[in-house]
């Protein structure tokens, strides 16, 4: 289990990085945290001819909170985002979900944006970007820049919209409207494993603490992160009396999970119902300011 050889590029600024990526095209891969990429290379499931290492691009290591969003640079590690207090203050779902990404040692190196680009449907951050309707900023040499919304970013398992020559330089996670609470829940075989099913739920309440919107993003139930609007199931109900199970039941009818060695499709569908209902209840309480949106594992 040793990687095949590759040509190594270590640009020190963004311009050089983009030039290198333009040069290597299809035969190149970006090395950021590498926590998903390196095992793939080590097992020789992929053998790109070039790696462009962006770890010297200090300008990309940032977590920035603006009024209505949290912007995460391509070199921000999971741990950076997880521990960022201003980001937590405006968008606690980021910490709640990131805490479930593998284990601390992986989060210390792996990057949030890298996880998005890797587009693993079993990973947490793609679902978070999707449920928040965020976007990814892609740039290329020569000044090309595009903002790809989450809904168009995840194309399939391990397939994102990043094209050869492009670098994902940041991701933007919009802060949901006032009155919104969040929760993240997942069930994994062992703590730190990829979730059998994971869900992030956003519940928005009106001034009377009645539900106006329920939005859920899922991990491990489809080829890409799945986002569902479950508002209809509980709209108008007070958060502390809402029939959250109905939201879960609705979600279960809308997903088409697959079987693998760890879980049957039917069981995954069942978990979607249970975890959605539990997470929605917590998100409702979170929105009402009466309870935490849970940092714990289920």
């Amino acid at each position, binding site marked *: *289990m*040793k*990687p*095949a*050889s*590759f*040509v*190594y590029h*270590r640009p020190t600024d963004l311009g050089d990085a983009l030039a290198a990526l333009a040069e290597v095209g299809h035969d190149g891969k970006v*090395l950021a945290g*590498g*926590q998903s990429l*390196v*095992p793939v*290379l*080590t*097992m020789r499931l992929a053998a790109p001819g070039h*790696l462009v*290492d962006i*770890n010297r691009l200090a300008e990309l290591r940032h977590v920035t909170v603006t009024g209505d969003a949290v912007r995460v640079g391509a070199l921000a590690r999971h*741990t950076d985002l997880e521990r960022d207090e201003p980001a937590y203050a405006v968008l606690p779902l980021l910490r709640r979900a990131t805490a479930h990404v*593998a*284990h*601390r*040692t*992986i989060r*210390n*190196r792996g990057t949030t944006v890298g996880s998005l680009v890797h587009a693993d449907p079993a990973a947490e951050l793609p679902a978070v970007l999707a449920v928040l309707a965020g976007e990814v900023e892609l740039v290329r040499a020569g000044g090309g820049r595009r903002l790809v919304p989450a809904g168009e970013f995840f194309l399939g398992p391990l397939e994102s919209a990043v094209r050869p020559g492009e670098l994902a330089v940041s991701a933007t996670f919009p802060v949901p409207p006032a009155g919104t609470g969040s929760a993240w829940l997942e069930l994994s075989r062992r*703590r*730190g494993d990829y979730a059998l099913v994971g869900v992030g739920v956003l519940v928005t309440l009106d001034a009377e603490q009645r539900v106006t919107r329920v939005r859920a993003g899922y991990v491990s139930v489809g080829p890409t992160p799945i986002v569902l609007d479950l508002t209809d199931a509980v709209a108008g109900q007070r958060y502390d009396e809402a029939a959250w199970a109905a939201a879960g039941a609705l979600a279960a009818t809308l997903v088409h999970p697959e079987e693998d060695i760890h879980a049957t499709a039917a069981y995954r569908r069942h978990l979607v119902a249970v975890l959605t209902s539990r997470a929605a209840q917590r998100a409702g309480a979170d929105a009402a300011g009466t309870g935490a949106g849970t940092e714990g594992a289920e």
Partner: protein
Amino acid sequence: MTEVRHDVRLRVNGVERSAAAPARRLLSDFLRHDLRLTGTHVGCEHGVCGACTVLVDGRPMRSCLLFAVSVDGAEITTVEGCRSGDGGLGPVQQAFLECHGLQCGFCTPGFITTITAYLAEHPDPTEEEAREAIGGNLCRCTGYVNIVASVLRAAELIRSGGRPA
């Protein structure tokens, strides 16, 4: 076709070290075979077992998931560097010895580095926190019971100035 080699300079356990290595050289192999610091062990080479954990600029990371060239210039701490100032066993090492926190010893270096970094930030963990702190490292021998005890004992040793009570 001769592979290009890159000069890699690291400060390992406080000492400047360098060697030339191909870009694909994993940090775990670089430490073990180029610098001959064989205390860092390789248990899975896909980032799950944690035996190869070293501290990179103070943070625990899997050395099997890093290319040496990519961390050029970094400060690295391996299990060999977790000794006490006087060259004796460091507090985490001492705690493992006192609590029978190891059997075959193969996973132990990864636990010791991980716990060293953890205790630097959390000097007084509860038993549950201690268990959580080692949650990303696999051990096939101990059932973790005595490793959890070792974390608590190490915290005690550090708080009391590193001296066995």
